[in-house]
């Protein structure tokens, strides 16, 4: 019995070892891990689409110093185990020089030990600040830290003389990270959190939490989540006649949110990357050219509006490109060049990396927007 088992085992091991290891001369291989399926598909799908589009564009215009880019994308389905498995495959089998993604903070945290050990630079597209704090030698990120978005909201509230806030955050990685930052930064901006509540990512009715909030002293409600939860909350708030203003996170800064919440979205304010307001940005905004180019390209390729999630992948690919142009196509070269990148005007903001900062953005990456007449407007 054991020998039969051993035989099966050995055969399978051999089979696995001879899996496709291909070398294409003259191309630079970049790996990508996105959760194209699974619950975070709303992140992974635009990210994959964008990354493919950008790489195609680079190759069409002659590649990088004559060398073509090859993008190897794996789907992680939002699962940390798969992310680690695929990261190892990218490094060992596909022999990529750099990795873009994963889409979520959890997956990124799981992959970090793998890339650190293999010395392969990774540019995560997830928002959690702990990805790059403390700084890891090979890990960078393009998604804006949640703390920046929180600061932007608190600053705005301070300007408008509100200091009692209620929090309603979703109980997943995105909401948990937002909640941490909201609580941590409250003292700095003299905010008093009068109520701190959560809701589940699949919840369909939040009137209970809102009833509680209505009875509290809160002057503003900050909602931290990704679609569809915040849209349900906006509708529930309208139903209950909740009077206080609603603030949301950058997690809903896509037209999708307005479509879902429809009338209930009016007047909602949120910090957002500049993608959605690219057309109304002042002419002297350094990001304007990149933003308008990206929005146009995405519209042309995929017939839907590009959002800032896809923008994270755009930034990641373009940063790798810039790094290769400067430091050559080796992993170590890319890493060193990335750390030296200054004033790179991307979609998510203007990136300036340093040895002490692998996130590279400041809070100017965000603008406060308000939903007016089912469209975005810069909030005053």
């Amino acid at each position: 019995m054991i020998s039969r088992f051993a035989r099966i085992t050995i055969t399978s091991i051999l089979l696995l070892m001879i899996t496709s290891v291909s070398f294409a001369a003259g191309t630079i291989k970049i790996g990508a891990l996105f959760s194209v399926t699974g619950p975070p598909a709303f992140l992974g799908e635009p990210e994959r689409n964008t990354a493919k589009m950008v790489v195609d564009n680079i190759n069409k215009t002659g590649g990088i110093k004559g060398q073509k880019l090859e993008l190897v994308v794996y789907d992680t389905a939002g699962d940390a185990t798969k992310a680690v498995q695929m990261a190892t495959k990218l490094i060992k089998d596909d022999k990529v020089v750099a990795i873009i993604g994963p889409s979520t903070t959890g997956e990124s945290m799981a992959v970090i030990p793998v890339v650190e050990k293999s010395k392969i630079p990774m540019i995560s597209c997830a928002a959690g600040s702990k990805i790059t704090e403390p700084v890891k030698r090979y890990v960078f990120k393009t998604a804006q830290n949640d703390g920046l978005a929180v600061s932007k909201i608190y600053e705005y509230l301070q300007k408008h003389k509100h200091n009692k806030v209620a929090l309603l955050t979703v109980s997943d990685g995105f909401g948990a990270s937002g909640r941490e930052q909201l609580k941590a930064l409250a003292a700095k901006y003299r905010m008093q959190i009068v109520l701190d509540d959560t809701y589940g990512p699949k919840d369909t009715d939040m009137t209970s939490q809102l009833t509680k909030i209505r009875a509290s002293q809160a002057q503003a409600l900050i909602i931290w989540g990704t679609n569809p939860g915040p849209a349900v909350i906006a509708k529930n708030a309208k139903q209950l006649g909740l009077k206080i203003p609603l603030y949301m996170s950058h997690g809903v800064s896509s037209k999708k949110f307005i479509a879902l919440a429809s009338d209930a979205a009016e007047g909602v304010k949120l910090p957002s990357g500049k993608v959605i307001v690219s057309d109304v940005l002042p002419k002297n905004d350094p990001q304007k050219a990149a933003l308008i180019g990206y929005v146009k390209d995405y519209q042309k390729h995929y017939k839907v509006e590009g959002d800032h999630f896809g923008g994270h992948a755009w930034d990641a690919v373009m940063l790798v490109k810039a790094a290769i142009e400067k430091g050559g196509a080796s992993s170590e070269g890319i890493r060193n060049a990335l750390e030296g990148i200054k004033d790179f005007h991307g979609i998510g903001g203007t990136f300036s990396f340093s040895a002490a900062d692998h996130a590279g953005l400041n809070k100017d990456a965000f603008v406060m927007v308000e939903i007016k007449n089912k469209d975005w407007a810069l909030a005053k």
Partner: protein
Amino acid sequence: MNVLVFVGIHTLLAIALNLLLGYAGQISLGHAAFFGLGAYSSGILTATYSWNPWLAMLVTASVVASVAFVIGFPILKLKGHYLAMATLGLGIIVYILFNEWVDVTGGPSGFSGIPNLQIGSLIFDTDFKNYYLIWIFVLGCVLLSVNLANSRIGRAFRAIHDAETAARVMGVNARLLKVQVFALSAMICSIAGSLYAHVMTFIAPPSFGFNISIELLTMVVIGGLGSIYGSFLGALLLTTLPEFLRFMNDYDIVFYGGLLMVMTIFMPGGLVRGIPQLFRKIRGSGKDKGNANA
């Protein structure tokens, strides 16, 4: 190498579920809970309280087995669909606990800083070393299960599976046996969870959710109920499939669902019995008309 580490962990889990499902005939849709309890408990004990990882693994496994033993009595009183739903509910409650008990588990953002396993000065920090570590556990588990399956207890399980009333009449304490195998199965899952935590050094709730329980069930069904080799085959297939199915893009979920249905209808014995049968049929000597999978 890395993928084989995960194949190993999944094989452990699949064998654990198969002991329950294939031998004792009791379904569970919540086995990821025991896997998660093992991983979180090991992770928390070693990272937060600096326990020795081996001691943590041992203590965790015994605690999980005892808990399973206690809840096994009321839960295994249920049958078929009811048992499926009760175990599913159990799995979801445990998942909610991982997600909501933020102070202890780190909540949805996950739990990091778990040390690697270590024997003397040998630290299991590479895929290569982990591969040997995991597969030693798998071999141990296989030996245990094969022996168990061929022992008096194994025969009693099969008797319960085939005809519980008859087995009871023959003096088999069906209930106690079922609860014991439930506890054993939970213990193996817990050990697999501990290993997983130390290999990954980072864990997060989605790795222990409902989907994982279903994936385990799929491994067991595709490999073959009641077959240890089947569990290995199912784990190997489902763990490596995503790497080969890249061309399928987003179609893989349809593929899994379809595969589960097709297998249940046309190959109820799983691959280990189905493939030899198929060969016999092709060779034309297959006059047994599917009776071989009894």
